[in-house]
């Protein structure tokens, strides 16, 4: 029995159902939420351990064998992503205890959050491309709900862009799935890999690949399809922004990694070398330039999501073992760091009632612990050694050097500098300079929930430090993941083995 594969999806779904039943008892919902976050993390760690020791785990839903039934597959990449989902789920569940307003809780914050986590975990574990679409829809519908909770004007404006673009992307995804099914007659990813790579080359396959690229590119917020992200991610309450910033775009990136390492590897010179590479470089540069122009903390961070997505895409585009390993390392480093930065911005808001850098100041003196906890993820994002971001950037850039792709190397270095610049900007404005005269200070009031806010931030910072100082182990893990991705034979064997 391969129950490990399904349990990380079942736990948040069960929690969502229980939260719906306990609709009127918010305290119960909070407990369910934290317990399920912890349970998800635990289950995902068990899954990762199982994948590491016993190889790729496969479960055929309803006992229907592979090319016909829906298969859940946990390879290293999927398992790592689920572990990160568990970490973020738990951190945000704890953080929400203190920050979520009464009205948000009353209108179903917890059920939506858990259904979204279930959707994310499902997307990471499925081995069927139509099923991937279904999980995408589950997480999108839950995220639409989360985005408009509270119903402020800015939220609605952001949500309209977010919903529209994501619906277009879903329609494109579905079109591509339909074309693919018409061409290959199967939707199981392993089976697709066999059928497409055995057949002779066809222009149609490249067209389908590009449709997938655009569909996932929109969800991953890659250039030139990213503008919905900075328009919407800073509008909902900070716990929701944080989980969006960490997880949602990375589901798109994950899908790109999966599809462009397993299924569409016929014409890598064009799809990877030209299109993905150009997309990655432009995403890096435009994202960071956008961030440099902003003066609102969460908008800066939103643009940085985009710029960092570029590094991951570039890692996939180079398509060498080292580069893909760098991309994978980048994904899990980034999810943790970015969520943490959003959580820190929420605490800044607690102190001074604003996200605007002009209205913040003096936090270094008034909240030294917050300053330290901000520096860790911020410097990690900028890529200073020995934090996790350094090893992520280093691996990607080294792969670029080895391939002799100097344009990409130069861009990655410049973008790294500009990232440092905007992190320093937040530091100088919010922490270092004195508090402006007209700024509010809410510090007089005792905040009894402060430790609930600091616990997840400190926990995530600790994980960042662990990844940084224990980089050896994590790089090994990323290398093993890249090896699995670049030789899909093992994946195909694991999924189809019994039935062919």
């Amino acid at each position: 029995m391969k129950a490990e594969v399904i349990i990380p999806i079942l736990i948040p779904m069960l929690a969502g159902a229980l939260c719906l039943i306990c609709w009127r008892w918010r305290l119960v919902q909070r407990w369910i939420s934290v317990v399920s976050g912890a349970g998800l993390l635990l289950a995902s760690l068990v899954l990762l351990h199982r994948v590491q020791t016993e190889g790729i785990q496969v479960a055929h839903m309803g006992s229907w064998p592979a090319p016909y039934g829906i298969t859940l597959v946990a390879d290293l990449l999927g398992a790592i992503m689920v572990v990160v989902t568990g970490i973020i789920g738990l951190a945000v569940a704890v953080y929400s205890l203190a920050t979520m307003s009464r009205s948000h809780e009353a209108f179903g914050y917890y059920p939506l959050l858990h259904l979204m986590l279930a959707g994310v975990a499902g997307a990471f574990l499925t081995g069927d491309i139509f099923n991937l679409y279904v999980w995408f829809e589950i997480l999108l519908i839950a995220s639409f709900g989360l985005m408009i909770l509270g119903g402020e004007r800015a939220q609605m404006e952001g949500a309209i862009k977010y919903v529209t673009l994501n619906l277009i992307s879903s329609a494109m995804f579905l079109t591509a799935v339909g074309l693919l099914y018409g061409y290959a007659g199967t939707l199981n990813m392993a089976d697709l890999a066999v059928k497409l790579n055995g057949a002779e080359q066809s222009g149609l396959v490249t067209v389908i690949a590009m449709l997938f690229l655009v569909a996932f590119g929109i969800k991953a917020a890659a250039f030139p399809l990213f503008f919905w992200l900075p328009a919407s991610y800073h509008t909902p309450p900070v716990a929701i922004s944080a989980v969006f910033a960490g997880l949602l775009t990375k589901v798109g990136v994950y899908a790109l990694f999966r599809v462009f390492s397993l299924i569409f590897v016929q014409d890598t010179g064009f799809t990877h070398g030209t299109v993905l590479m150009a997309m990655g470089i432009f995403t890096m540069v435009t994202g960071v330039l956008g961030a440099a122009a902003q003066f609102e903390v969460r908008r800066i961070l939103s643009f940085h999501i985009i710029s960092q997505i570029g590094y991951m895409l570039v890692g996939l585009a180079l398509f060498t073992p080292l580069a893909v390993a760098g991309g994978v390392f980048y994904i899990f480093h980034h999810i943790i760091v970015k969520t943490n930065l959003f959580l820190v911005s929420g605490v800044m808001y607690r102190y001074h009632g604003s996200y605007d850098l002009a209205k913040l100041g003096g936090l270094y003196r008034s909240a030294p612990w917050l300053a330290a906890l901000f520096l860790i993820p911020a410097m990690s994002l900028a890529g200073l050694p020995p934090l996790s971001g350094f090893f992520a950037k280093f691996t990607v850039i080294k792969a670029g050097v080895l391939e002799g792709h100097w344009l990409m190397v130069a861009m990655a270095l410049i973008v790294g500098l500009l990232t440092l610049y905007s992190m320093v900007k937040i530091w100088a404005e919010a922490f270092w300079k004195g508090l402006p005269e007209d700024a509010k200070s809410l510090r007089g009031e005792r905040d009894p929930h402060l430790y609930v806010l600091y616990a997840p931030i400190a926990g995530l910072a600790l994980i960042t430090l662990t990844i940084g100082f224990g980089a050896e182990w994590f790089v090994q893990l990323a290398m093993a993941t890249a090896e699995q991705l670049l030789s899909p034979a093992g994946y195909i064997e694991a999924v189809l083995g019994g039935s062919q």
Partner: protein
Amino acid sequence: MISGSSLILQTATRFLVPLLFLFAVFLLLRGHNEPGGGFIAGLVASGAFALHLFAFDASSTRRLMGVDGQLLMGCGLLLALASGVVGMVLNGQPFLSSQWWSLYVPGIGELKLSTPLFFDVGVFLVVIGVVTTIMLSLAKVEE
């Protein structure tokens, strides 16, 4: 929302709502071996509630339902998940593997129970929950 305006609609609704529910149950139990199933049955049942809402008003429809839409959603989801877990726990098969039991009921004969049936009932409840929640929220906004 125009409510209580048409005597004909209200009278017809009193007769139609029980019939629609009966039809929904028929569709629900007919599924899996023949066309039908939880989803379509849920839509028919929600249709009955929608008709009732048009003929009367939101508060009387809520009274007719007796429970919150959220509770229906939660219970339905729980039931559907539980039906998938049964095979995992009993026989160690993957999630959603179907289990069948035969039950002899005096007077009716052999009754076949299965986890797909429970799954369908779960879907039925989720669909009713979602549709009525949306409907009643819109009616509330209108008021």
